[in-house]
Each structure stands twice: as structure tokens, then as C-alpha cells.
């Protein structure tokens, strides 16, 4: 069992947990993920490790409640435990000094990007960060990102906060800025966003690393459920990734593949929402 030490709500559906996992906290590097199972009978789901505190023996996970398992998870609080947490899995992000880099985060992907931006800054890069969200209240980690970035630009799809538009608009403006000198782009967010960023940077010839979320069961290279096509080759996101060259990823295939269980995920979602509502009503009584 893995104890939840702290819980913090970052946005209406986005929650941060600090979880006791001393072995993982010691070893974790930017870009690593864990597989977790909330309770018996639950799914194993991958979550990127946003941060860690080796002294305390804790790791930080930031979760968006979008499906049954993540809703169940965000219903947990400090003092509760997760049944299983295993990691750190996947390859750490390759961090080098490129000179100037752009870090582009979309939605909860910003949480995954944060440790990478920190590491890039520590490696001596000039870091320009672009954070995108659908609407104002979903913008997360703006201040935290500012601590490791030379500039932070926020975009919202609906214009409710900061710059109206998509992250690609802001990125294009940055790349077009004379003398911006961006040598590498790190993009993490929803697949359509990473695809759009990769398409944009391809025209500029700027190397782009994306972090992919795929179907996954074990997370250690055993099931092959996470397979995708990168540069015409079959790759496993869990052991070959989760980060890949955005210009080589077949995003369209991956987006279709990720829809495999959409209808069944809806059933799980409804089941957990029903259960959680019942629990809440019980508590109110």
C-alpha cells in the first residue's frame, strides 16, 4: 500500500498527490512514469511522475479526472492509500544544453512538462514555456513554470485568460521572432496538440520531443498494448519511450488506436461515478 501524504486541487478536474514511495522517489528522473492501481479489481494506469522528494520518500503525481480510474483516484485524500505503485518506468528525458528550448504544455500535460523544464533549465538552457488550456480555470502550474523559465506564455482556447488561441499560435510567434534561436521543442499534451506542434516544427526543421500516452497494461514491455509506429518501425511506448521524435510518430494511427476501448471506458466511468456519488450521499447522511 502506498500512502497519500498530501492532496491539492490545482484546477476543477486536476489534482496533485504526494504519495509515499521511497524506492521510486530515489530513482526517478524527469520523464519517468509509474503504473498505479487504486484498489482491488482496478485497472493499471500510467501516470507521469511530476516531481519527487527523496528525503521524504515521496513522489508527486498530477491527475486529471477524465475516466473511471482517474475519477476514483481523485476521490481519494490524504491518509488514503493506493494499492499499487510501480516504477520509475520508461526512459528518462534526454536532457542536454541546446542553447534555447521551447517547452510546450497542453492541459494536464503541463504537469509532465514541469520536471523536464526544470531539468532543461538546470542544464543551462534558455527555456521559453508555453502553456495552453481550454479555459482559464484549467491553466495549471503557471507560477511553478515561471521559476524555471525565461518566459512563460499562456494561451486559452476561449480567450478567458491571457492570449486567446492555441499553443501552436504562440509557438509559431516565438519561432518567427527574429533571433529567438529555438533549437529544440519539448511538447506534452493531448495527441492532437502534439501532432500540431510536430507539424509546425517540422517546417522549421526544429527537433521536437513528444511524450505519448497509449493503451498500456503492465508498463514494463510485456503486453505490447502500447505499440505505435515511429519512423515506420513498431515501438513500445513503455520501454522504447514514452518520449519519441515528434516528426517520426504516426499520430493518426495512434489516435485511432487509443479509441479502442472508448465505449467500455464509458461503462467503467459511469460505474465509478455512481459508486462515488453513493459514497458521498452516505457521508452527507
Amino acid at each position, binding site marked *: 500500500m502506498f500512502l497519500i501524504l498530501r492532496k491539492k486541487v490545482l484546477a476543477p478536474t486536476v489534482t496533485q498527490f504526494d504519495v509515499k514511495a521511497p*524506492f*521510486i522517489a530515489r*530513482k526517478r528522473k524527469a520523464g519517468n512514469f509509474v503504473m498505479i*492501481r487504486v484498489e482491488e*479489481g*482496478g*485497472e*493499471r494506469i500510467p501516470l507521469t511522475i511530476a516531481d519527487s522528494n527523496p528525503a521524504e520518500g515521496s513522489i508527486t503525481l498530477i491527475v486529471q479526472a477524465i475516466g*473511471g*480510474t482517474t475519477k476514483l483516484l481523485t476521490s481519494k485524500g490524504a491518509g488514503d492509500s493506493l*494499492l*499499487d*505503485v*510501480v*516504477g*520509475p*518506468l520508461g526512459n528518462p528525458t534526454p536532457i542536454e544544453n541546446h542553447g534555447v528550448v521551447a517547452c510546450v504544455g497542453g492541459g494536464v500535460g503541463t504537469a509532465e512538462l514541469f520536471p523536464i523544464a526544470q531539468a532543461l533549465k538546470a542544464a543551462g538552457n534558455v527555456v521559453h514555456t508555453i502553456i495552453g488550456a481550454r479555459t482559464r480555470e484549467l491553466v495549471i502550474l503557471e507560477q511553478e513554470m515561471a521559476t524555471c523559465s525565461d518566459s512563460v506564455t499562456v494561451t486559452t482556447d476561449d480567450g478567458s485568460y491571457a492570449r486567446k488561441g492555441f499553443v501552436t499560435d504562440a509557438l509559431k510567434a516565438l519561432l518567427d521572432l527574429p533571433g529567438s534561436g529555438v533549437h529544440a521543442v519539448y511538447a506534452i499534451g493531448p495527441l492532437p496538440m502534439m501532432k500540431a506542434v510536430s507539424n509546425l516544427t517540422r517546417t522549421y526543421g526544429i527537433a521536437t520531443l513528444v511524450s505519448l500516452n497509449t493503451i498500456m*497494461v*503492465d508498463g*514494463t*514491455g*510485456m*503486453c*505490447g*498494448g502500447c*505499440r*505505435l*509506429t515511429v519512423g515506420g518501425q*513498431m515501438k513500445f511506448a513503455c*520501454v522504447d519511450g514514452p518520449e519519441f521524435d515528434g516528426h517520426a510518430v504516426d499520430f493518426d*494511427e495512434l489516435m*485511432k*488506436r487509443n*479509441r*479502442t*476501448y472508448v465505449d*467500455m*471506458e464509458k*461503462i*467503467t466511468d459511469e*460505474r*465509478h461515478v455512481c459508486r462515488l456519488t453513493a459514497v458521498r450521499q452516505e457521508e452527507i447522511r
Partner: protein
Amino acid sequence: MSAVNPLKPSQRMKIPRQESIEQPAAERSINFLEVSFGFDEDRAVLESQRCLECKEPYCTDGCPVGIDIRGFVTLVLQKDYVGAVQKIREANYLPAICGRVCPQESQCESLCVMGKKLTPVAIGKLERFVADYEMKHQLFTPPVVTERREEKIAVVGSGPSGLTCAAELAKMGYRVTVFEALHAVGGVLRYGIPEFRLPKEILDLETERIKALGVEVYTNFVIGRTATIDELFDEWGFKAIFLGTGAGTPTFMGMPGENLSGVYSANEFLTRVNLMGAYRFPENDTPIKIGKAVGVIGGGNTAMDAVRTARRLGAERAYLIYRRSREEMPAREEEIHHAEQEGIEFLLLTNPLRILADENNWVQGLECQRMTLGEPDESGRRRPVPIPGSEFTVELQTVIEAIGQKPNPIIQATTPGLATGKRGTVVTDAQQATSRPGIFAGGDLSRGGATVILAMRDGKVAARAIAGYLQGLNSPPP
């Protein structure tokens, strides 16, 4: 040993080989309960009477772990079932598992003298009977460990080789810690072998017995990630390490359409069902999708497990697609037979070429070609050769590839100096020692892909070698 069977050999030979009680095929092909219920006491005793109690029991030569088969069968005859299972456990710590999944027909039973002219003694079913008897009546007592040794030994992987190695070392008095990457113990016994062949309850009981020897188990711990092999030596203080991480990485045919929705590796398919309990969706959260028609590619035991599982999940048509003929299938005869009984359709001498998609990116067919058998290849089996112009399409919605696994590369990639061989296996000598002093390996990790019992044999050989290695460390240099 003096003969205890009052029957003369001629009388023993008149007793027919006893059949175990099985769930009828029509019933079992829609549930996940165990296919075979094994022997009842009467059948077990009758079967034990068939043993000729040979002076030189060849059966034991056929057993990779060297069980005293004549000895335990005689104890069954004397109705000392607990004595019998204890006799087995001297050589094999997982009798309830081996009694179910061992290919006895090609091992002990293939050498049984009764089988020369008649049918061999049903050794496997007797093994299962005594193990089940002990479980049912809760008569297990852990062996007494007389000596305690200080050295800590790490066992990586909790499959058949790891569990056996751990048990053997614990019996010798060593302090053993098992590291398992998944959230549950058992390795391939957990994620690979279906409930209807090996109930998880049996696996749980057998592993509890290993814990009862004082073996410590860490689940959710990936060696190479959570801690490396060198850290286990340097920081955790382990004096020797056994690697039994199996062959868990699936291979794919490399044909077009493999990333479509509805295509699984057998590993993913079986892991979803066996480890995650997807057959109980939505009670369990992990989903699995099964079409009206399912095609499983391959001819081994994994392919049989997958296709029989697909049938149980509701596939109206379940095809086993294999490029050679029935004779060359590596699967156990019993499994092939059970599959046939359950209505599995065998598309033999059939080679898949590409997976066809519908407009939603889902599988809707498998294009195949017919094969014929040519000259024998390096495996000694006749090589399948395509028949030109024989292409045809099988209509189906789910494709499961069961064409073999290879070792997971994480440990090899994070352990300097560990020599690897063909297809990523770890190279060992006859004592299961690797190229690195203090590191031993066995099972599918060193073999590439074999059986539960061979993995257990390796675990046992390695345990003895580890003890020898540690004693060598402790004795002063000459």
C-alpha cells in the same frame, strides 16, 4: 524397496488407465472454471495399483526435477496421500501446479514401462490428486529448516524458476527475497496460464507455502528500474542473485495491420484476462474486446490458452491459425484435444499475410495463404512453403498473435558484464551461472521459451550452485 502391491503384474496390467473427471465441453467452453477435476480417491488408488514398481524406475529419468515417482505412487497405494505429497515436495515444491501443467506425456509418462505395450501410469494426475488432497484437508506442514544461514539472496521474478529457486534456498536456511515487477506473484503462472487450467487459488496457496518458509516477497518492484542488480549487491547487501524474469516480451509477425484496434499479442490478451480479471468486466475495470470471430495465430500452448480463452469470452467462431500441420504443433496433445472438444476451428497449413481494417480502424478480416510442407528445417520439423495463388480471407474481428516471446531486456540493459545470447537470452553454464560472478539465471530467460517444469529444474540447479558459490566465498583461499 519391497513391493507393497498385492496384485501380480498381470493383474495390474488388466486395470485400465483411469480418466479424470472433466467438465463437459459444452459447459466449460462458456465458463472459466477448471476443465479437469482430477481424480477422486478411488480412481487414484486404482491408478496407483497399475504401477509395476520397477526396480529401475525409468519414469524418474524423465522428470526434469527428479521426483521419486515410484516412491510417491506406492504411498498413494498405501493411502498415505500426505506422505506422497511430501515425497514429491522433496524434489518439487509446487506439486499442485506441476500436476496440472507439466507435459507428463513427453516426460515421466513417456518412459513408463506400462506405456510400452499398454498405457502409462497417469503420474501427473496422481501428483495432482495428492497435492489437492493435502490442500483440501489443510494438511500442509512446512518442512523444518534446521540450519539458518546469514547470507541474503535475491531472486528476481516470481515465476516457476524464481519460486523454485527461492524455496530450495530457503529450505537450506538462506535469507531469500523475491522481487516481482507485477502486483501479484507467479509470473507466467499468474498472467499467462488461464484460470481454467490453473486456478489462481491453487497458485496463491502454493506461493503462500513458499512464504511460509520465510521467503520475503516484494511485488511492484522492477529490477533494473526500481533498483539495479548492482544496487542489490552494493546497497542491499545481497550475496548472490538468481534471475528468473522469463520471456515476457511479445513478438509480432511484422505484417500490415498489426496496430489496428482488435489486434492483441497473446501476452496482452492473456494478461488482461488472467492478471487483471477482464473476463469479469465491468465488475473489474480492465476491458477486453472480443469479436464474434477470433483468430489466434500460433500452434503452441500459449496459442491454445488464448483461443480457448477467446471462446470462453463469447467468440462464436474461434480459429487457431497455424502454418504447419497438426503434427508439428508444439502444444501439448491434451490442450489440442481440449480445444477441439470446445469447438475451436483449426486452420492448419495457413499463413497470415495481412490484417484488414474496417472504416473505424477495427479488424474485419485476415488475409491468409495456404501452405504445404517441404523439407525439414533446423528444428527438424518440415518447413511450411506457400502455395502460390492460394490467398483467401478469413472474416474476423479480433486477431491474437501467439508466435512466441523473448526475454524482457531491462535487466540485460542495466547490468554491465552480463553476457547475452540469441534473441536476448542470458547465457548460463550447466550450473546456471552467468558471466557475472554471483549472478545465476534460468527458465525462459536463459532458454528463450520452454516449459514450467524446465524453469523449475533450472531454479533448483541454480539454488544448489548458489549454495556452492556462497560456501566458496566463505572458505579461506587455498
